[in-house]
């Protein structure tokens, strides 16, 4: 039995060139309509049965929030219908309309009633709510003194105090700290097992992977894909990266294909790579386009025109899986004659910590490189991309002449290339190093 049935759901906002025309349309119903329709969602169809968990992804403005609002009944559809069976608890926005001047307890009572609970029921559930929210004495303080994390804790605790038949969660939870998120997710999972249908909107693909077996990908108000999480998210990620890179025709390479290729070309690899890559533990690293407007410095003797990551076959990468071999290419043009050129890069994490990097100095120390004015030159570094903890990273690239100790910087770009790591496999430390071999052996028995 379908618990959520969405058929031909479409939503449009009326737009009038000016307010007088709206008035005219109201009072002269015979005249032709003066408004134009701005379609936010068009012809959405899906059916979810009890226990389904579906993630909804899409770029900003794709219609995710509107879809959720239509499902909860906050806004009315223009065409089509939503049929819901069971009690819905929705965590659409921070605080669920908490009144700032009232205490957490009073607000909890109010929100509970809005969710369709009776005051006595809420009274009975209050200890559990307090327990789950873990905001201590703040429960009797006005909500205005709460941090946004505390508000979301309380809101989530109230919304999930009684298992809803349908749970709808928008970005809201991302405000909570890691501990609370973890706790919320396990609660959501336990609800799922008991038959709660989950609709979950997030930009955090890793969370969606862990919670939802199915994903709806919304694009420009329509369902672009609806299916198995892995496939839809791969397609989604590829499309996003392709858009970022402005590359036409970045194809979705099947994992098997690339795994086979690596088997042949590279001998040295993390022995767990093929297992990791085919599980949801893989370390997806998303790469953005060379940042032309990045801030840099230098005397202008050379100009970096491109910084790109390639695979070993020379195909530009929009995303890679940590633990595989990549080639970093730095292209530059000499604005003057350069002697003793050396080129370097550094990978930094979000906190600006230098993780790893290298330069051409030692390689070229015996045969210094000289480059004439207006010459375009390309430097490549081939290396094993480590496994990266989740987060965003930047590659700094630079061109200098001289020696490592005494040199002139011609150009140094701080954030030439960004990449982002989506990691399900926990990496301990700043980076993970591929393990060639891991073994446990019994050496001797004491008995």
């Amino acid at each position, binding site marked *: 039995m379908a618990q959520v049935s969405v058929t031909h759901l479409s939503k449009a*906002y*009326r737009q009038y060139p000016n*307010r007088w025309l*709206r*008035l005219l349309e109201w009072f002269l119903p015979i005249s032709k309509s003066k408004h134009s329709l701005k379609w936010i969602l068009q012809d959405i169809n899906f059916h979810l049965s009890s226990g389904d968990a579906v993630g909804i992804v899409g770029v900003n403005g794709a219609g995710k929030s509107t879809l959720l*609002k239509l499902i*909860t*009944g*906050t*806004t*009315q559809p223009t065409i089509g219908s939503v049929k819901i069976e069971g009690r*819905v608890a*929705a965590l*659409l*926005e921070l605080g*669920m*309309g908490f*009144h700032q*001047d*009232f205490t957490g307890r*009073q607000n909890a*009572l*109010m929100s509970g*009633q*809005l969710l*369709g609970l*009776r*005051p006595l029921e809420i009274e009975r559930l209050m200890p559990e709510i307090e327990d789950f929210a873990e905001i201590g004495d703040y429960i009797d303080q006005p909500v205005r003194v709460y941090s946004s994390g505390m508000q979301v804790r309380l809101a989530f605790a109230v919304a999930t105090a009684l298992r809803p038949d349908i749970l709808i969660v928008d970005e809201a939870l991302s405000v909570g700290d890691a501990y609370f998120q973890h706790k919320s997710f396990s609660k959501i999972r336990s609800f799922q097992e008991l038959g709660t249908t989950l609709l979950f909107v997030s930009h955090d693909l890793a969370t969606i992977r862990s919670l939802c077996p199915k994903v709806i990908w919304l694009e420009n108000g329509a369902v672009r894909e609806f299916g198995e999480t892995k496939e839809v998210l791969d397609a989604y990620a590829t499309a996003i990266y392709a858009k970022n890179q402005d590359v036409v025709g970045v194809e979705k390479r099947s994992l098997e294909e690339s795994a086979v290729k690596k088997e042949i070309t590279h001998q040295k690899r993390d022995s767990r790579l093929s297992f990791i890559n085919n599980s949801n533990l893989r370390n997806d690293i998303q790469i953005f386009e060379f940042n032309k407007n990045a801030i840099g410095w230098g005397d202008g003797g050379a100009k970096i025109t491109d910084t790109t990551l390639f695979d070993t076959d020379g195909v530009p990468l929009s995303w890679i899986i940590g633990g595989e071999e990549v080639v970093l290419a730095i292209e530059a043009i000499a604005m003057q004659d350069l002697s003793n050129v050396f080129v370097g890069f550094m990978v930094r994490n979000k906190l600006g910590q230098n993780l790893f990097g290298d330069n051409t100095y030692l390689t070229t120390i015996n045969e210094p490189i000289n480059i004439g004015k207006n010459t375009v030159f390309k430097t490549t570094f081939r290396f094993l991309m480590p496994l990266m903890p989740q987060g965003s990273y930047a590659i700094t690239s630079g061109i200098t002449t001289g020696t490592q100790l005494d040199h002139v910087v011609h150009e140094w770009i701080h954030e030439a290339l960004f990449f982002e790591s989506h990691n399900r496999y926990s990496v301990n430390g700043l980076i993970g190093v591929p393990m060639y071999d891991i073994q446990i052996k019994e050496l001797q028995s004491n008995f």
Partner: protein
Amino acid sequence: MDLISSTKLTAIYRYRGFIFSSVKREFDSRYRNSVLGPAWLVLNPLAQILMFTLVFSQLMRTRLPGVESPFGYSIFLCAGLLTWGLFADILNRSQNMFLDNANFLKKISFPRICIPIIVILNSCLGFAIILSLFVGFLLISGNFPGWIFFAIAPIILLQIFLAAGLGMFLGVLNVFFRDIGHLFGIVLQFWFWLTPIVYPFAVLPDWAQRIVMLNPMTPIMISYQGILVQGLPPIWFSLFPAVLLACALCFFSALLFKRLIGEMVDEL
């Protein structure tokens, strides 16, 4: 078309807890962080009554025909001002009710009809407090008109329906055209002076009486004043146009509300 279907009524019943706590919450929040608290509820009309008594009764020596009590004019004023206060309060709250609750409407799904109900109950709560103080004053000063007093109940009910219907209409329109709020502030001023509240209807010249009689609030006010000042039963027939108007307004507003509620949430 059934405007208030049985499902709607059960929805209201199911959300009664929400409605009552909203009323309580709004009442609380209005006087929270103030030292005198709900006393402000009374101080406002009290100041108004003192002012009008002073200006009209003492300075301008207005006398009510056939009333000798020293409190005569004050009671006459209370009869009009307090009930007009309820009328104006419902209207003022109603025209902003959807705008004020925009966040609620946009984010949470609940029967939307709760909002006007909360607004009306809130106004009535304030009025009930003022009215009971007024009754206390009447009893202590020996001016209580007796059983006839309870004749004001159906008139108050009529007035509430009139205000609710009109308020709902203004509230819905105000979402689309914010001019309504500004415009109606002015209209309400004129309306006040075109209603025999601070002056007795009888002192008006004939031509003015004919104009003022077109105002549906006039017979309502005359009835209150008759009951409370002279202890006279109202001329029920004179209230008939107001009843008709209240029914029409409520019906039309409910229709408008039902038709536009979806678009309203989009517009907020």
